[in-house]
């Protein structure tokens, strides 16, 4: 039997290692270490956050992790501790109790309430607030958000900018495939739909995704604050080549973006064939 306890101890200590490396990595995430390393525990770092509000999600994740670790360590202390202390060789006479004494009921009730208040009530309240104040607090017209229409189809992403006339689905629209370019420090407002099956518009670096569903237009808004090149993925199973349905996100400074957009609009005016019906996959911008 002692061999078994050896392994119990091994598991407890490896739990400790996991816990500490998790905490260290969360600490590392703040100063943005380089991800290319092959160290196992480096992957406990999520992709670099490039958004103004992504930290809300990271914060909530970390809070939940700390609370979870606390309660899970309690469970493990009980599990391994009792298994060790009350081994039948050490404790020959078990305590004959149904666990229905007031002190027992109170203990379990307090555990239940502590878990509920410590984790559940707190995180759902915070998440609710974040939803109401940020993620579902849609940018207003006067904030001049950049509007982009996103069309998913097996297995590409198409993006549409309104063009000079600021009206969607007209011949001067800028249309790109698998190539989304946006400015930083300006609110972005996407309307997303799908031509065929359900896809999901996933920006890991902004911690956000929204499903692209045929027959429905879903919305997502975000504000990014780091210029560079980032991945866009399709997160919902959409067929054999689901794994290849990635797009590139390029974030520009506002000036760089304006110069790119100006150029793209000129090209669009020349290249777009107003007779080509395939050009008009967009829709009238939905105001809700």
């Amino acid at each position, binding site marked *: 039997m002692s061999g078994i306890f050896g392994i119990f101890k091994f598991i407890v200590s490896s739990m400790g290692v996991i816990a500490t490396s998790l905490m260290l990595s969360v600490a590392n995430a703040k100063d943005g270490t380089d991800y290319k390393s092959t160290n196992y525990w480096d992957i406990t770092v999520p992709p670099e956050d490039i958004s103004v509000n992504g930290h809300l999600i990271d914060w909530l994740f970390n809070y939940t992790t700390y609370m*979870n670790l606390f309660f899970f360590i309690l469970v493990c202390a009980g*599990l391994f501790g009792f298994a060790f202390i009350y081994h039948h060789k050490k404790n020959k006479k078990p*305590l*004959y109790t149904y*666990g229905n004494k007031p002190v027992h009921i109170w203990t*379990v009730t307090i555990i239940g309430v502590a878990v509920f208040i410590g984790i559940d009530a707190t995180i759902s309240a915070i998440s609710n607030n974040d*939803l109401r104040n940020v993620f579902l607090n849609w940018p207003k017209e006067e904030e001049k958000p950049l509007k982009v229409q996103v069309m998913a189809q097996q297995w590409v992403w198409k993006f549409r900018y309104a063009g000079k006339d600021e009206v969607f689905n007209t011949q001067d629209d800028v249309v790109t495939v698998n190539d989304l370019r946006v400015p930083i420090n300006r609110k972005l407002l996407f309307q997303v739909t799908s031509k065929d099956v359900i896809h999901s518009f996933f920006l890991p670096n902004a911690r956000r995704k929204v499903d692209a569903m045929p027959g429905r237009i*879903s919305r997502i808004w975000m504000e990014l604050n780091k210029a560079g090149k980032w991945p866009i993925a399709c997160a919902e199973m959409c067929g054999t080549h689901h*794994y290849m349905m990635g797009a590139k996100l390029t974030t520009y400074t506002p000036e760089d973006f304006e110069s790119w957009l100006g150029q793209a609009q000129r090209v669009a005016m020349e290249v777009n064939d107003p007779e080509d019906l395939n050009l008009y996959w967009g829709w009238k911008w939905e105001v809700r």
Partner: protein
Amino acid sequence: MAFFEQHAHPVPKTFLGKYIFSFDHKVIAKQFLWSGLFFLGVGGIMALLIRWTLAYPGQSFPILGSILFPHTNGIVPPDTYAMLFTQHGTIMIFYAITPLLIGAFGNLCIPLMIGCRDMAFPLLNMLSYWFFFISGALLLSALFTPLGAAAGGWTSYPTLALTFGSPGVGQTLWYMAIFTIGISSILGAVNYITTIITLRAPGMGYFDMPLTIWGIWMTAILNAIFVPVLGAGCLLVIFDRVFGTSFFLAGAAATSGSGDPILYQHVFWIFGHPEVYILILPAWGIVSDLLSFFSRKPAFAAKATALSMVSISVLSILVYGHHMFTTQMSPLLTQSFMTLTMTISIPSAIFFGNWLGTIWKGSIRFDTPMLYSLGVVFVFGLGGLTGLYLGTTTTDFYLHDTYFVVGHFHYTMAASVLLGGFAGIYYWMPKMFGTMMSEFWGKIHFWLTMLGINGVFMGMLFIGYGGMHRRIYNPFYYEELRRLIPMNEFVTISALLLGGSQFIFLFNFLWSVWNGKKAVANPWKVGTLEWTIPSPAPSYNFKDIPVVKCGPHELGNPNLKDGKDFQYQTEELVTS
């Protein structure tokens, strides 16, 4: 003859009557057990193929690869990969865990533990198995159709699963198979519920039932209510696929009228969330009982455990929307589903409190079934806590459809349920087959399984948090995910360890069935009704219907004399 006394029907003489078309609940339990183990093997091999592809994309799968995929030099092709994870999910949920936990233990335990001679409806019971069998045949037959089996994920969301997304007949067969296994589950559920309500031995109140029976009872009730919903959903998709209706069709392919694919998700998940509890409740019941039996003391607050099972079953109805946060339901629905989901932790915390309370100050014996029960507490702790991230809407925005979800639900549905199932198999082996399994190999199996299972699913949690999404054939198509290669290799190696160590179980099990040490009537020294009869249980179970006089967890009573530390449920509670 009182209503609770059934006839001891004569023992069938022919092979067919004895082993194939048997009405005997114990034989049907074994049929479910063998089928479940078979499908567990099939689903397990699929899992290894999937894992291999994720860690070593473009490399041939060792040994089996060149036989299965001769055209690609043993490399899993992308369309086959999609088929593999679809079939893996379907098989493990509906064809491995359902028959093992519900079919096998439900059938075996209910009559033996509540003290009756057979189920209330033996014919329905037999049909339940044969519908399962037909369903399994339908599912496997799809593998041999021209375009292969279903490949749209185990959830088979339209519109991908409609004809323009999945033209093969395999997808239609998938829905038919699920519809048929639904019939099997409903027949079983009706039978279980009726048996538990009407055929309890005289003197046995609901709270005198072992907690295993409570778990199976709640499972049966959820099955009876929600499997029909899934069946209806499958029928509607079959209409869409075969008769050209458009319940779920939308987008460019919807040329004549448009349905709504999201409607299917509502139908699916209103079944799908309770399904999680359908699978885990029997395991919870088994664990709650075994912790008490092997700690040699009564189950801590058994009534509270039973009532928590009831409340969690009720709550499971109200939370399914947490699977659909990214479909952008109305903010009101989103917020209510999140809040309701969070309330599930109260009964869950009560479980943990009671489980730890049960082993507290016990005299714990570490027989194999006990090790597995303790293992369930460990892995279910991780599974439950990781669910919190996904029930929270804003963290779900990031984690939804990533490997974090995969790790989470495997901890709850695969790890916890599987370990609970192993606990049950090691524990009831003597009553099923009259033999004992090897304790030594059982313990080795346990530790290797624990190591493997935690390596795999803990690794998946990290990979998901690192940003890798689900159901992708080659994750490293995304440059940003290449930093996850080492962790993916770690998970695959753990999976190989996990898969390999199941051979220990397989040999131990098969050896014990035919050559195992003969078991005594009550090897674990436990007082529930199944241990009052010989091992293996005779075909009529109880010569005389027992009369129950005390609860199922009467262990460690200091008033017991003659060195006994437990009493049978048929004995008057010793009070002095």
